[in-house]
């Protein structure tokens, strides 16, 4: 294992320490491992709290700031945060308008946020939770844990963050978040495993010439191991299941036939060790496939925003846009990892 770390057990805390040093505008509570907007709680604003296992940076702490999250809870590596953290974050950001939990759909995350929500409700805080489950690699079913929450989380945190900043109330924020969940899908592929520091070796072996299709963000193997393919082919393997799962074109209209009315937000994400030159190359392939499928791209995001430690690979997220979503996407945001307009 080759990593720029000290003690494998201390990686999360030591990295948060560095985040605190680099971003004095944030409040980083190292004991609780929560990262809070410097001006929290913002009176009258819905507080947005997210969190999850560490190892996905910049998600979530890198998205704390004006126009996005109010607080993030950093769990152990790939392990959901504990309720204490969520409760501390809730207390730190509750400005009287209630708190929205944004939870990626993993059993651990769901249960820990659920416990926290029960406890927060008992304290009289208005809490709503939204579960993000956008990963089409996983068969959806009420009999299983359901789909994982992956790339869509980034888009959701930005868009709902903008709505909260503009004064949307808790019910409106929750409804918008659920609308985004209903309209977004993702799929990922890995060229290499990642290495969890405490484990010290790759989670799985992935020989030369092979890749994992349908991976999540925790170094878990994918749905299928397939031969390593060209970027062109990988793009197809990622885009096709997404388009098969949800209609991204709007064929109802007559004038604009074959293209979604407002297009999509297309997010090509790096899993941690894939250089930007490859991500942009993939973006070109994906844009071609979408054009051929009659899906128009309204906005794009390319970069490593929800990672899996040092995994090489990428994921694609598509979100059906509408004018409100696009306006909220374009709204100012000021966080360590996503910033524009301010």
């Amino acid at each position: 294992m080759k990593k720029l770390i000290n003690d494998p057990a201390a990686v999360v805390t030591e990295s948060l320490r560095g985040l605190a040093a680099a971003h004095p505008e944030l409040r980083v509570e190292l004991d609780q491992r929560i990262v809070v907007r410097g001006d929290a709680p913002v009176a009258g604003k819905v507080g947005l709290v997210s969190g999850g296992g560490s190892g996905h940076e910049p998600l979530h702490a890198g998205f704390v700031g004006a126009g996005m999250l109010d607080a993030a809870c950093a769990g152990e590596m790939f392990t959901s945060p504990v309720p204490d953290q969520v409760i501390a974050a809730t207390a730190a950001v509750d400005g009287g308008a209630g708190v929205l939990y944004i939870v990626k759909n993993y059993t651990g995350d769901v249960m820990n946020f659920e416990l926290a929500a029960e406890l927060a409700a008992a304290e009289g805080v208005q809490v709503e939770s939204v579960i993000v489950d956008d990963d089409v690699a996983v068969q959806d079913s009420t009999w299983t844990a359901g789909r994982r929450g992956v790339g869509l989380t980034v888009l959701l945190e930005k868009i709902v963050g903008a709505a909260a900043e503009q004064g949307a109330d808790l019910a409106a924020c929750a409804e918008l978040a659920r609308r985004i969940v209903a309209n977004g899908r993702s799929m990922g592929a890995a060229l290499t495993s990642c290495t969890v520091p405490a484990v010290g070796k790759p989670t799985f072996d992935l020989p030369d010439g092979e890749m994992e299709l349908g991976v999540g963000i925790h170094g878990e193997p994918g749905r299928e191991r397939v031969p390593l393919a060209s970027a062109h082919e990988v793009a197809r393997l990622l885009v096709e299941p997404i388009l098969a799962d949800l209609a991204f074109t709007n064929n109802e209209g007559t004038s604009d036939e074959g293209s979604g009315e407002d297009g999509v937000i297309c997010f090509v994400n790096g899993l941690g060790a894939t250089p930007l030159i490859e991500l942009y190359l993939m973006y070109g392939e994906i844009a071609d496939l979408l054009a051929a499928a009659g899906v128009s791209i309204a906005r794009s995001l390319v970069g490593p925003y929800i990672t899996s430690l040092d995994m090489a690979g990428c994921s694609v997220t598509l979100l059906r846009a509408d004018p409100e979503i696009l306006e909220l996407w374009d709204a100012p945001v000021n966080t360590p990892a996503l910033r524009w307009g301010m």
Partner: protein
Amino acid sequence: MPAVVNPAAVRRWLDEFTRLIEAHAAELTELDAAIGDADHGTNLQRGTTAVREALAGLDSETGVGPLLKTTAMTLISKVGGASGPLYGTLFLRMSTAAGDSAALDGAGFATMFRAGVEGVAARGKAVLGDKTMYDALAPACDALDAALAAGSDLSAALDSAAAAAAQGRDFVTPLVARKGRASYLGQRSADHQDPGATSAVLLIQAAATALGSPAN
């Protein structure tokens, strides 16, 4: 049957569980690497180590219920992931069931344990065959009841509970997981032993070792 499950026995149980988790942490993480995210051993070790410290900080007079409650809250606060709330709920429900009894006899222990296991099912929404820790815990409950009903003492009953747990764990190994991270793998989760079921067996083995003997 004598009331064997007193505070000292509960402490011995948790001590032994901590020891077993420590001894098997790498194996549990290895199992989780195959069909999960390679942290189950690390998670539980962090939790049980914290439990040991928390219990050491409690008054020696602390009763069974409060000991179990501290265990529950410590696991919930320290473990995270799926297993944190699940083991936490197990101990929380047991603590509630224990109430302020000074000690429990075999039947009392069995009732309390079943309450805990039902809590796991409620929290995790798992049913038998989903390939989770519940597949080890539920058969253990049944075996425990059956053995006690047949007149075994708690020691012997816990031995058969541990055997039933191990059988449950192995029974689901060939199955496809339907809950937890392993479910993401679909067909590929088959023929892998479930990490949570494996640690659940250790919990019951620890009980058999620590609670079985009336010598406390």
